[in-house]
């Protein structure tokens, strides 16, 4: 896979997330402001997809974008069905992206899926589209002359006459000015290809930037051309064709009177201005008039800001000096009056008109029929023309859309907003392959181990070689290195830290879909999404959360009628929250549903044969509730596609265990259930306690250890084949760790006090009898690999400072 595609896949995922969450927000709050964000995300996605050869993907996104843009323009609300459809589109896109990532191509059935979704997206689009463009047309200042003139300049007289005749006969002529965004090639657009499809074209021309004198370097990937066409096709048809680029194209009915004026039967004989100069003068006039029209002071600033670049554009495009305009704009701004700028614009206009009349005799671009200087300003004017049309609204709009004057004047400097945005984002965020970070972290881990050998060296210097001063110096140096390594460790950890919101943000969609499917009303409340945790922890969270949220929706939350009957509001609340607690992340999934009934759980566990009656009797309600995490347990009477297969909560516990976390449930019948998961902030460093078993040293993960006790012989009692003791009123079975590890009976010698490591896992408490306790340490745990990979009972190995290897046990796997 090439880098570009890789980058696209990365970005695409973010964009899909963004669009999906935006859609959900729009649906929930009915806020159309979010619409733009969704549209932007889709637009960028479509644009980048065009860089690669996945036509169904681009077409689908295009259709979705159209649908959204029609909605935006119409200002219409979004129906849940439409949200469904758009979400489906996003799903399909994600699916395809996954396929592209895995196999480098789209699945064979992609065109079928594309056709289906595109048809759905397009249906109902026609109305919105028509409405939108009607609005547009009303706002536009008719630029008919611009296109008409540019085209007609290159036409032979006979043809021009034929067009004039048709117009006079009452046929509607539409002038099209299409100025593709300079980044349009990246969107997969082919402006010429599009223009070739324009029906009933009677005249066309392509405008080339005036500064192309030949020889200078130019950017192959920026579209610098502008297209003009005259067509007798119905406007509706043209709009349908140009629907994807309506923001870059202007369609105007040619006014027959204006046309006659713009198309003198014998060009050159009339002294009127033609082509660029006329258009430029018209624009300058417009700007000056706008500035001279009285308006409230707050609107004036906006007018100046829009008029100055517009006039600047026009003049710069014609190769006229624009400095006077910029100076006048500054003066106008300072004086809070449009007069100065208007004056400067008028002066420039007169100069331009004089010059154009004088130049009339000599064609401006003899070697370039129909292109070159005369048509270039039309391109600029298309940009500039937008502004006066918006009038008061121009100030914020121009601030958003246009670069400030210096860069806007630069030919072709008006890159579209999406591009500008993406570079902004790119400058602050660096995407790095996780493998590189892992390598860095592994190396820092090695450094920690290497550093830990220094105290051993110091001891050796003192005891073996008897140089106490050296030993002290080594210790001093150790302290320095230790500090740096700790900072280094902190830094790499913080790089790996991600906000939990990344996982949470997938849930609004899930909850929405499921609750719709189940006919329940659920409000999802998300709290603490800024809480950070290690990337691996975050990633290991999704599955458990998914199962719990599903369970909660399916079993916990009641149907609206049932809730009303129970005196609760019909809409249930599902709360997903995260917070940091020391070096742990605490996640809570709380619902206000019917709660878990311990009696029912007991009964169900018995029916499923998970436990015998006696064990169930002994169990506290709290422990009974924990049974829902046992493999094979399910409360559902039937298997639905939401949950009920008896695997969900078991998966949750396994995943949480693997991530070194703990899970806890509290539930009150009729009031709801809260499931709490505690996870380590980072899995990179594990805390272990070392224990001696005979001559051997082992590590035991700290999070499994409840306490360490030393028991007198008298405290032991024998129950069946096992030793046991009573600790704080509870019977704790004792197991010799040496037996579990098959180390022989050398361990438990006849000492008066027996060290017992009390551990708790899988909901049971077990005392491990060891020979002695070592120290607590932080280690970088390395999983066993190679031939040892399958060895059960070991969580991994860690290197000790003196070079020894510490085997870290996993008691969960050791127990028979």
């Amino acid at each position, binding site marked *: 896979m090439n880098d570009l595609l890789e980058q696209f896949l990365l970005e695409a995922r973010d964009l899909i997330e963004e669009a999906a969450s935006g859609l959900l927000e729009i649906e929930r709050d009915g806020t159309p402001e979010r619409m733009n964000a969704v549209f932007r995300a889709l637009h960028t996605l479509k644009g980048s997809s065009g860089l690669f050869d996945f036509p169904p993907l681009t077409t689908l996104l295009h259709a979705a974008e159209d649908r959204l843009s029609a909605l935006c323009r119409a200002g219409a609300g979004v129906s849940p069905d439409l949200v469904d459809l758009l979400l489906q589109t996003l799903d399909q896109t994600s699916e395809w992206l996954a396929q592209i990532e895995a196999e480098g191509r789209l699945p064979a059935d992609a065109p079928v899926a594309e056709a289906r979704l595109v048809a759905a997206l397009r249906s109902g689009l026609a109305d919105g589209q028509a409405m939108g463009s009607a609005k547009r047309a009303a706002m536009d200042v008719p630029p008919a002359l611009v296109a008409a003139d540019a085209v007609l300049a290159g036409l032979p007289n006979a043809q021009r006459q034929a067009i004039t005749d048709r117009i006079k006969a009452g046929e509607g002529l539409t002038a099209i000015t299409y100025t593709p965004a300079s980044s*349009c090639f990246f969107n997969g657009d082919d402006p010429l290809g599009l223009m*070739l499809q324009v029906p009933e*074209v009677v005249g*066309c021309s*392509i405008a080339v930037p005036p500064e192309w004198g030949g020889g200078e370097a130019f950017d*192959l990937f920026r579209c610098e051309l502008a297209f003009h066409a005259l067509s007798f096709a119905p406007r509706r048809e043209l709009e349908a064709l140009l629907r994807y680029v309506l923001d870059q194209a202007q369609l105007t009915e040619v006014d027959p009177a204006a046309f006659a004026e713009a198309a003198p039967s014998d060009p050159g004989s009339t002294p009127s201005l033609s082509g660029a100069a006329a258009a430029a003068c018209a624009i300058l006039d417009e700007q000056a008039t706008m500035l001279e029209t009285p308006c409230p002071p707050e609107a004036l600033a906006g007018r100046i800001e829009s008029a100055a670049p517009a006039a600047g554009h026009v003049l710069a495009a014609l190769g006229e000096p624009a400095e006077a305009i910029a100076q006048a704009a500054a003066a106008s701004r300072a004086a809070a009056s449009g007069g100065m700028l208007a004056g400067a614009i008028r002066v420039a206009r007169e100069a331009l008109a004089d010059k154009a009349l004088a130049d009339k005799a000599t064609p401006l671009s003899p*070697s370039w*029929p129909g292109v070159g200087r005369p048509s270039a300003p039309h391109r600029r004017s298309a940009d500039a023309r937008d502004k006066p049309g918006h009038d008061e609204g121009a100030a914020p709009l121009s601030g958003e859309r246009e670069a400030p004057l210096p860069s806007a004047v630069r030919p072709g400097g008006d890159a579209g907003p999406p591009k500008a945005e993406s570079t902004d984002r790119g400058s602050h965020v660096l995407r790095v392959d996780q493998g590189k970070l892992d390598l860095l972290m592994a190396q820092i881990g090695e450094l920690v181990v290497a550093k830990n050998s220094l105290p051993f060296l110091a001891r050796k210097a003192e005891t073996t070689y008897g140089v106490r001063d050296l030993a002290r110096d080594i210790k001093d140096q150790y302290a320095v290195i230790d500090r740096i390594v700790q900072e280094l460790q902190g830094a790499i950890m913080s790089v790996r830290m991600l906000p939990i919101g990344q996982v949470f943000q997938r849930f609004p969609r899930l909850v929405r879909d499921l609750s719709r499917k189940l006919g329940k009303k659920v409000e999802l409340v998300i709290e603490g999404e800024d809480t950070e945790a290690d990337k691996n922890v975050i990633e290991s969270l999704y599955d458990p959360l998914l199962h719990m949220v599903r369970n909660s929706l399916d079993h916990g939350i009641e149907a609206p009628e049932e809730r009303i009957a129970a005196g609760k509001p019909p809409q249930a609340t599902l709360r997903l929250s995260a917070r940091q607690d020391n070096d742990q992340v605490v996640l809570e999934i709380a619902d206000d549903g019917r709660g878990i009934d311990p009696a029912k759980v007991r009964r169900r566990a018995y029916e499923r044969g998970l436990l015998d009656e006696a064990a169930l009797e002994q169990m506290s309600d709290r422990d009974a509730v924990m049974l829902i995490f046992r493999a094979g347990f399910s409360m559902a009477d039937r298997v639905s596609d939401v949950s009920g297969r008896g695997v969900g909560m078991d998966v949750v516990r396994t995943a949480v265990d693997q991530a070194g976390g703990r899970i806890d449930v509290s539930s009150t019948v009729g009031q709801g259930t809260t499931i709490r998961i505690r996870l380590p902030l980072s899995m990179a460093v594990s805390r272990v306690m070392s224990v001696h078993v005979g001559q051997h040293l082992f590590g035991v993960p700290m999070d499994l250890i409840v306490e360490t006790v030393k028991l007198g012989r008298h405290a032991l009692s024998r129950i069946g084949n096992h030793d046991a003791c009573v600790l704080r009123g509870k019977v704790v079975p004792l197991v010799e760790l040496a037996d579990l590890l098959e180390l022989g009976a050398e361990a438990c010698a006849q000492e008066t006090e027996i060290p017992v490591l009390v551990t708790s896992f899988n909901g049971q408490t077990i005392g491990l009898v060891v020979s002695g306790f070592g120290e607590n340490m932080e280690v970088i745990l390395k999983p066993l690999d190679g031939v040892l990979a399958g060895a059960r009972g070991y969580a991994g190995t860690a290197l000790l400072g003196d070079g020894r290897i510490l085997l870290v046990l996993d008691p969960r796997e050791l127990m028979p």
Partner: protein
Amino acid sequence: MTIRTEERTLHLEGSCPVEAAEEVLQALGDGGIDAIDLNDCTHLHTAVLQVLLHARLPLRHMPALPSLRAWLAVLPNTTAPDVKT
């Protein structure tokens, strides 16, 4: 799509997609070309057209397709505008 140079003329044949732009630019940059032949060209991507426009080389033959020809009037057309038979 085929891009070939023959007798100092760059022939663009078939449908020239966006990717061709770079190749054409390269070919023109290498020098030794003083005309373009679009006789067998069925489509030109805008990016390719832009390269041709920028190079300002004379056109030996217009494309056979009338629709494309109308738009390509912007290309300097120093020799016979007719389609080669």
